[in-house]
């Protein structure tokens, strides 16, 4: 038997539009992570492909087509220079996709285009995992697949094709979810090039003004949910890292700590803390993808989770760069003393002073030291100075002139937390007290619906730590002496709504005074949290827990049987769904059934056979031979049926006639 299959059907305008729409979304997301060149190239290709539908004379000349190919080649070649391999790969895919759209004239190209799009969506999902982005990307997949359906079913109506595909997609979703929940997880098969992106959030080199700048952002930093009673928000000092080197302008990590960072990356184990004091506070933290390794925790934090490492500066550190949302379990002991791991290093590391001198400050500290007898007195005097002189807490501090500390203390006197923490630490060092700057976040917003705290970038904070031989490291937050509201409440309270997120007028945070907007923001936030908790962080351990909850034991015959039953159920579900979709009632099929029922009844009850080609009305004579009543009934049935078949009816009218027909069939 010869097999010739005719697949070169023309591509409809609606199909091309659907494909272009899906690609527009996906390639836009793709270009957010890479170049926009490729995206513009796609726009040109799509426009060229769509032009003939609107301007029938339009035909792309051969040499323009070739020049488009050359442009694609140039874009690909430029992406090779100075970019990582993944970016090049995706630029290549985007260019090929654009060229496929340019030459989208047969079924084959249509299919290629859709399959490549599916892969690009999967790649995008590595970068964009927020709930709303995922919904948009999945919608793009649905639109792309509906282009296929539109092509094969020849709908030529977007609405019909898309709505049919949405039906199918929604019905496939439960199946996908069950597969997602029960299919065994594999460990990574081989090492892939790392996903790279700009690091987000706190950076471990801080200039005066850096944190103030970060505080303009309302992006989420991390979320934490406590197992028991959470501590007060004013006590939530989330430590991220410690800065010890100061050059008069920049605070940064000491070489000693950096060597530790390198060490734990290879060893994958850090410091073990001893002398931990009850009570313990247990909580989970889910960080956003920061493309860094720093984690966040309350003092004194320990974690038994693999990949979460304790550094000697009491911070937690991830052995892998955080390219995705990451969830870790922490146990903190707030009452414990922070006694250092290696006491020999303390003085050397934490008394370091910059080469740049601040003569006024040095003089002032000398005077203070002479006045006070103990360290505690000195510290109190400095803090009182901050509190009593006209120091201002501001998100927009003036740029400091060198020598910066002198300028800040005696001239500008407006600063953000890093100004106060940095200056205080410098003063302590001048006075001979070992001190360092700690950077992290302070506070958090409680979400009652999800029972968790959200910490945003504007919660970023810096404070100081001083070393006391009998107590270990003691936290001192000089900001709290300038702006106590910052610690007691939050940033918004401390600086007022006008300055808060000043550059983001559309941020929902700005409208928190309206209860409805606040509730909505909390709701969206909670949705995203649950999404993160259940979808993004669903792993082998969670899977095991879930299976245990569902089936009891996770091994043995009973379990296998139950699983088999589940899978069988799944398949029958798909079957039923498929059947329902295929046999979706259309008005025409309803009429067909009605007609069939009526003629069958006549045949069975009265032996009136309908011959081929005979209309319903022509059966009337035969019914008359039986009885006048039957003929009467038949005639009214015919009238209603003709209305259904030929008259343009509204939904309600259709229903009335349809009911009447059904009634009459019963009466026959």
């Amino acid at each position, binding site marked *: 038997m010869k097999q010739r299959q005719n697949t070169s059907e023309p591509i409809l305008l609606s199909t091309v539009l659907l494909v272009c729409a899906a690609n527009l979304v996906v390639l836009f997301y793709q270009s957010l992570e890479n170049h926009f060149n490729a995206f513009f190239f796609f726009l040109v290709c799509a426009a060229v492909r769509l032009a003939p539908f609107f301007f029938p004379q339009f035909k792309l000349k051969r040499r323009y087509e070739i020049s488009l190919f050359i442009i694609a080649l140039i874009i690909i070649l430029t992406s090779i220079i100075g970019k990582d391999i993944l970016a090049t790969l995706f630029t290549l895919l985007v260019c090929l996709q654009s060229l496929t759209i340019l030459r989208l004239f047969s079924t084959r190209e249509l299919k290629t285009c859709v399959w490549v799009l599916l892969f690009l*969506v999967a790649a995008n999902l590595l970068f964009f995992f927020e709930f709303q982005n995922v919904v948009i990307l999945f919608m793009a997949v649905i639109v792309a697949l509906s282009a296929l359906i539109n092509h094969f079913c020849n709908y030529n109506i977007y609405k019909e094709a898309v709505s049919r595909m949405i039906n*199918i997609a929604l019905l496939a979703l439960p199946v*996908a979810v069950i597969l997602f929940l029960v299919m065994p997880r594999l460990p990574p*098969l081989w090492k892939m090039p790392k996903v790279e992106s700009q690091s987000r959030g706190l950076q471990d080199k801080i200039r005066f003004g850096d944190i103030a700048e970060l505080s303009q952002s309302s992006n989420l930093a991390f979320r934490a949910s406590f197992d028991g009673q959470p501590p007060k928000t004013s006590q939530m000092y989330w430590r991220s890292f410690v800065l010890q080197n100061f050059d008069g302008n920049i605070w940064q990590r000491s070489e000693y700590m950096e060597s530790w960072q390198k060490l734990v990356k290879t060893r994958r184990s850090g410091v073990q803390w001893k002398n931990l004091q009850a009570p313990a506070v247990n909580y989970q933290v889910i960080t956003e993808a920061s493309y860094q390794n720093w984690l966040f925790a309350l003092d004194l934090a320990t974690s038994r989770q693999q990949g979460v490492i304790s550094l000697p500066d009491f911070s937690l550190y991830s052995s892998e760069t955080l390219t995705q949302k990451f969830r870790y379990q922490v146990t903190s002991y707030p009452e414990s003393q922070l006694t250092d791991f290696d006491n020999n290093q303390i003085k050397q590391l934490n008394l370091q002073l910059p080469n740049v001198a601040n003569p006024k400050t040095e003089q002032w500290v000398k005077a203070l030291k002479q006045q006070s007898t103990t360290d505690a007195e000195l510290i109190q005097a400095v803090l009182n100075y901050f509190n009593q002189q006209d120091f201002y807490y501001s998100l927009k501090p003036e740029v400091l002139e060198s020598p910066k500390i002198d300028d800040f203390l005696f001239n500008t006197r407006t600063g953000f937390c890093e100004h106060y923490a940095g200056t205080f630490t410098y003063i302590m060092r001048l006075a001979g007290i070992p001190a360092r700057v700690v950077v992290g976040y302070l506070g958090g917003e409680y979400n009652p619906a999800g029972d968790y705290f959200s910490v945003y970038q504007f919660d970023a904070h810096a404070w100081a730590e001083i070393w006391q031989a009998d107590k270990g490291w003691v936290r001192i937050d000089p900001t709290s002496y300038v702006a106590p509201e910052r610690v007691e409440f939050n940033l918004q309270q401390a600086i007022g709504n006008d300055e808060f997120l000043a550059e983001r007028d559309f941020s929902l945070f700005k409208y928190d005074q309206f209860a409805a907007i606040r509730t909505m923001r909390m709701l969206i936030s909670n949705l995203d949290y649950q999404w993160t908790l259940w979808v993004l962080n669903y792993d082998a351990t969670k899977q095991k827990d879930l299976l245990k909850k569902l089936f009891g034991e996770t091994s043995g015959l009973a379990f296998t049987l139950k699983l088999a039953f589940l899978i069988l159920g799944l398949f029958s579900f798909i079957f039923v769904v*498929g*059947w329902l979709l295929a046999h979706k009632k259309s008005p025409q*099929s309803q009429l067909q059934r009605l007609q069939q029922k009526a003629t069958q009844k006549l045949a069975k009850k009265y032996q009136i056979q309908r011959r081929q080609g005979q209309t319903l009305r022509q059966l009337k004579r035969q019914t008359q031979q039986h009885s006048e009543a039957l003929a009467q009934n038949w005639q009214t049935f015919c009238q209603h049926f003709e209305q259904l078949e030929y008259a343009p009816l509204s939904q309600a009218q259709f229903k009335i006639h349809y009911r009447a027909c059904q009634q009459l069939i019963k009466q026959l």
Partner: protein
Amino acid sequence: MLTQVSKWRQLRFKHWLNQRIPAANSLSLNKRNIFIFPSWAGLAYLAVSLAIFILATNYESNLSLLLCYWLLALFLILLYLSYFNLSGMALSASPLKPVHVGDRLQLEVSLQSNKKHFHLNWLDEVNTQIKQTSPGREIIKLSWNAKRRGNWVLPRVKLFSQAPSGLFNVWTYPDFNQQVLIYPKLIACPEYAFGTGKNTTKEGDLNQPLQGVDFQGLKNYQKGDSLSRVAWKRASFSQNWQIKHFEQTQDQQIWFSIYKVQADSIEEKLSKLAWLVTNAHHQEITYGLQLSHIELDPAQGESHLKMCLEQLAKHP
């Protein structure tokens, strides 16, 4: 050797197919007679799903994994939908009407269903394609070229579809159990329109003139009479022109004989005879047909014409 194996396999396949879908005038499509397999595009779709699975596993991305499972679930649902796109259809073929060589053979297939069907492709000789059918009855015309005279058996017709997504090939091979006679091509030969006479070697009368037209005598010429019928021999010595008068007898009969028709080949002779009998039928002349294997006595009417054409078609 290879060809033998493939021949044997083809035979096995035919045998299996005959059991699976026995020849019948009508066929309702269900799981017994529908075949389904992923198309190349479907296999490519699976390959992309696998690529996404590897990407998801290596980057430990739950969302890509979810996308992968969702694509697989869609694949399964589309499998059923592709199957349902053909199933539930009742096909029945009306008998083929005989045609002449070179004409188009048309098979009318009625398609009865209570749902919509999409993208139906028939592998007849013109690759008939139906984009969409609506619920109810629809008539589809499939056509073949009538190439050779004689009995023609309708082959199995492949009906296939890729709707709704192109991921699956769904097909069936209905055998409508139809055969038809293909008559010879019509070649006009007006020179024999009044019959060729019968080859009567048995009676020894080879030169019988126009059969069924008798010479009745002479009549006086009147205006309007054909000049060709004037008896010129008599006119030369008579004042009055006279014309020969012929009269058709009540049972006027003419014969067409394969022995008398001049042509290069037997096929051409048959073609000419086919034209002659058709022409005679339209002229309402009573005619008989003499063939090498059969003699049909003179008669008139549709059934006689049909019988003549059938015998011409069956001519060895």
